[in-house]
């Protein structure tokens, strides 16, 4: 993650236009969204948004307060920090030839990513991880030629309070 980036999560009512309300607020106040991901939460009719923004602390605090004012937003948290787990999913369609196929597969293997589609001239790779891992894999595969890439943007949450902090799991 870029040092100036902040991860903000927002619980919002699953209503028409709510994404528009949030996005409009960012645009209107001149805050730049690096990524935004929305999905169902543990409560029915309530979605959880994960928004990554670039900016200084004071600006992000203003983002948080302005978001809090949106009526359909229930709760906003800035979860930037060490105790946060973040994940992103990406699909990459990589150019391949019989000569390069096995090398690509090896790299994919090292990253514990998956080949989800094989075609005559391409492999489609699915990778999950924090932003750094996804970007590293992308950088390695770039040399083979990326035909198409789609990234979800990160989702995140804070670790449970009693979490033991198993090294292997942390370092995945």
């Amino acid at each position: 993650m870029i040092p100036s980036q902040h991860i903000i999560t927002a619980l919002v009512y699953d209503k028409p236009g709510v994404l528009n309300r949030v996005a409009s607020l960012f645009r209107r106040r001149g805050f730049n969204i690096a990524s935004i991901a929305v999905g169902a939460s543990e409560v029915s009719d309530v979605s959880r948004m994960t928004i990554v923004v670039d900016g200084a602390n004071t600006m992000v605090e203003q983002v948080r307060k302005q978001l809090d004012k949106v009526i359909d937003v229930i709760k906003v948290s800035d979860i930037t920090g060490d105790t946060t787990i973040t994940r992103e999913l990406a699909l990459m369609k990589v150019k391949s030839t019989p000569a390069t196929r096995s090398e690509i597969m090896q790299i994919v293997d090292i990253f514990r990513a998956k080949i989800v589609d094989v075609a005559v001239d391409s492999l489609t790779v699915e990778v999950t991880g924090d932003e750094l891992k996804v970007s590293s894999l992308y950088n390695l595969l770039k040399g083979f030629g990326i035909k198409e890439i789609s990234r979800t943007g990160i989702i995140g949450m804070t670790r449970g309070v009693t979490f033991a902090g198993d090294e292997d799991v942390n370092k995945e």
Partner: protein
Amino acid sequence: MKLTGAQIVCESLLKEGVDTVFGILGGQILPLYDTLTQYPQLRHILTGHEQGAAHAAEGYARSTGKVGVCFATSGPGATNLVTGIADAYLDSTPLVAITGQVGRLFIGKDAFQEIDITGITLPITKHNYLITEAADIARTIKEAFYLARSGRPGPVLIDIPKDVQTEQADFVYPVRIDLSGYKPTISGHATQVSKAVKLITSAKKPVILAGHGAIISGVYDELRSLAETAQIPVVTTLLGISSFPESHKLSYGWLGMHGLAYANLAVMEADLLVAVGLRFDDRATAKVSTFAPHAKVIHIDIDPAEIGKNVHVDIPIVGDAKNVLKAINKHMQPLEHTTWLKQLDRWRKEHPSIAIRDTDTLLPQYVIRKIWEATKGDAIVVAGVGQHQMFAGQHWFYDKPNSFITSGGLGTMGFELPAALGVKTGKPTENVWCIAGDGSIQMTIQELSTIARENIGVKIAILNNNYLGMVRQWQQIFYERRYMATPLHCPNFVKLAEAYAIPAENVKAKKDVTLAVKRAMAINGPYIINFEVAPEENVYPFVPPGASLHEFIEAPQKEVL
């Protein structure tokens, strides 16, 4: 019992205590207007333009403290409301706007007079709704009124498709509402309050800065009590004018670009600002990086997003100003600031910002002062935007709570006439003086028809200099007098008034001012006075853009007119 959507709207408005609605009808809101015939308790005032309806509802709301209501049809009717809604948003005015929308089947088809008004008003409303079923109307209206008036007030828009207005549903007005995303903090945090008391007690040069929030919260008594107990001078913002009596010896006027010199100096020299319900807007602070350089800041506001937005705050207190000031006053010991107050009085003498030059020509400042004298200040002043607004702020002395109503944040020219008719409708026993500019009033001049038809007894004083005066002043000072597009060709306002069947007169000479004002006051109904004032009179003090608050230009002793 089943009612139509339109009936549910009317029933719900009655439940919310609405007695007056301003608006204009059209195709997609016809069912609601037809239903109004069954509800004579709801007075409908037809305006000349939807912008007028929105401003009238604002004037009604700001003078009564109740939620103002306006109606418009879809498409252009709805877009015409936009300026008024934006004005209400920036000045925290409680407003509920109800618009007709094309039938549900037509939405998204670019049907005749279809426009996405919830999309358009998204950044200028506190919240908005597109209702898709008649069964949702009652709950939505309940929520809308609650949102509009609670916390930091603001406008809420409800868009209702035509076929939802005719659809039948059971009418049950909800007792409770559930908005888990909206819980305004009302009472200030006790720790913060005691920190504030401590800081106030230790300050040597404190200033209370009162904003529009002080008026919305109605803290007149609490403010006065704090100022008197702790002997703290009070300076207001433009919209904070009339939150504290200006004849009080602790009142030092208002600050800002055209604020009074000693108010600006007091703030720049202060070691503590007790800010009550304001947002440190750039017209108030001037250059923000050099604003109040020696002052610690206690900021009391109901909107947490305002804390620290523009200036650094040492002690934030989120809450309703009334509750917070009550809590502070409870712990406040009597204090003295004799030296500090003496300094302020010296500045007041050295910089007589509200002195009016003795001239042969008719000055706009003089007109304001004479109206104030003739009415003994017993009036609500409604001003538009421009030089006349600043003169009205400076040269009338506001002792009556909430007696100065103008467009602050958005700076909407044309606000004065419709807002004044809204004020008079909400407060029929009050004297309402609409202080208008010749440019400003022409932006909403069609509301003269509303005033004439409804016989709304607003007294209208046009300070006519035949210019867009404030812009002309900028051109004079910053653009070497190149008066591009500021000279006006005003109509003969007396003849215009005659065309609307409103009595009017023209005043050119100083000696005629008071008599004309008295004639206006004697008439039971609207009256217009067109004051032909000095065309190139400027507003002073004037803090040039980019300068600090204390770097004001003062009126030259003898200005060429």
